[in-house]
């Protein structure tokens, strides 16, 4: 049957229901596009024949192929759109710089989309209120305390806190830091929020 390649693309994403981004399946997309090209050409020649020779019995077949073309288009669009939703979530969970391992799974156009999305978001956030704007990707949980205890999960280097003090984030070291300064590092897995 037609559209088998297209459903494979969809299955591939559906299997990863937790939002992971699998490698962009360029080859899969190409194969679907090729099938579409072939279906379209067959339909064109059948349409011509139906018209010039009055062979209206070809119409069900033409319609059949047209359904397959639409189906392929839908599967590809859904595949691409679902990937965008995953990539969008990355901006909120990782911040604006993505780990190489993830970028490696994105195609050039996706990287372009991501960069544009970052830009739009930054423009929007800058436009909020005063000169600096408001970073709404921070403060994801209601604050319970100003300072929190954190443990360093990997070497991160120097880190400047509010009053200008610089501290060294070394693996396994423990610190008492302003909550809103370290939120993102926690989400990136550099620090761990310790609750005693």
């Amino acid at each position: 049957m037609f559209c088998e390649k297209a459903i494979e693309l969809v299955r591939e994403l559906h299997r990863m229901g937790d939002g992971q981004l699998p490698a962009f399946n360029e080859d899969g997309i190409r194969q679907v596009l090729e099938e579409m090209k072939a279906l379209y050409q067959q339909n064109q020649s059948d349409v011509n024949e139906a018209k010039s020779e009055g062979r209206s019995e070809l119409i069900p077949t033409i319609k059949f192929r047209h359904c397959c073309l639409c189906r392929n288009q839908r599967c590809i669009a859904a595949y691409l759109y679902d990937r965008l939703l995953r990539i969008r979530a990355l901006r909120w969970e990782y911040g604006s710089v993505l780990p190489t391992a993830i970028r490696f799974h994105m195609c050039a156009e996706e990287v372009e989309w991501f960069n544009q999305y970052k830009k739009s978001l930054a423009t929007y956030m800058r436009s909020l209120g005063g000169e600096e704007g408001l970073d709404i990707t921070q403060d994801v949980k209601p604050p319970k305390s100003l300072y929190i205890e954190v443990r360093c999960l990997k070497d991160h280097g120097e880190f400047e806190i509010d009053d200008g003090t610089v501290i060294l984030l070394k693996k396994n070291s423990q610190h008492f830091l302003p909550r809103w300064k370290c939120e993102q590092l926690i989400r990136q897995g550099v620090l761990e929020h310790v609750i005693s």
Partner: protein
Amino acid sequence: METQSYTPVPPGVGMEENFLSLDDILLSHERLPCRTESAFPRLGFLEKSADTRDIPEGTKMEMPLWLAKGLYERKRRTLSVDPPKTYRQGWRTVLGADPNVVDLHKMGPYFYGMGSQLLHFDSPENAEIAQTVLQTFIGRFRRTMDASQNALDADTSALVAPLDALERALFRAGQAGLAAYQRWEGGASGRIEASGLVVNYRKRKLGELQA
């Protein structure tokens, strides 16, 4: 709960399909018993049992829901569709007797979705199919809800196994709610955590190293 993490396009409600929903695309890939009511010239190669050039009128073949929906027209018949056997009289009687004993995952896994989609095709059984689908859902809902609320940290695979896709989604929502409540009760909801994606990628990296 507010979340900025990945949320897929949800499936459509009732008889609707959402164009971009992966779930709906998989649902519409399910096959239905059909009978061609006109010939389909030059497509014979799709029908494995015959090696004719055309698919002749009156051929019985299984077609995916999306294709059946696309070809189906009330005025100009090219296709008729039969309800699959899990929606016919025999199974309707079983489901009517006790909906809880049936493994809808095996029968589906999109039992409710497919049941609703069948209503797109004219059939004298439509009213009864709709009724059975609705009553089955109502009859099983309580158990699905109870199961999701009473199995924290337990192995839920046996509970989830006989559930259809819609019930599984409800079950997961119930479990997530329960877990969030427990976290709040334990005072841990204020804990800032690494993004689920971060944790997963790290695990995978580890797996790759070990492999």
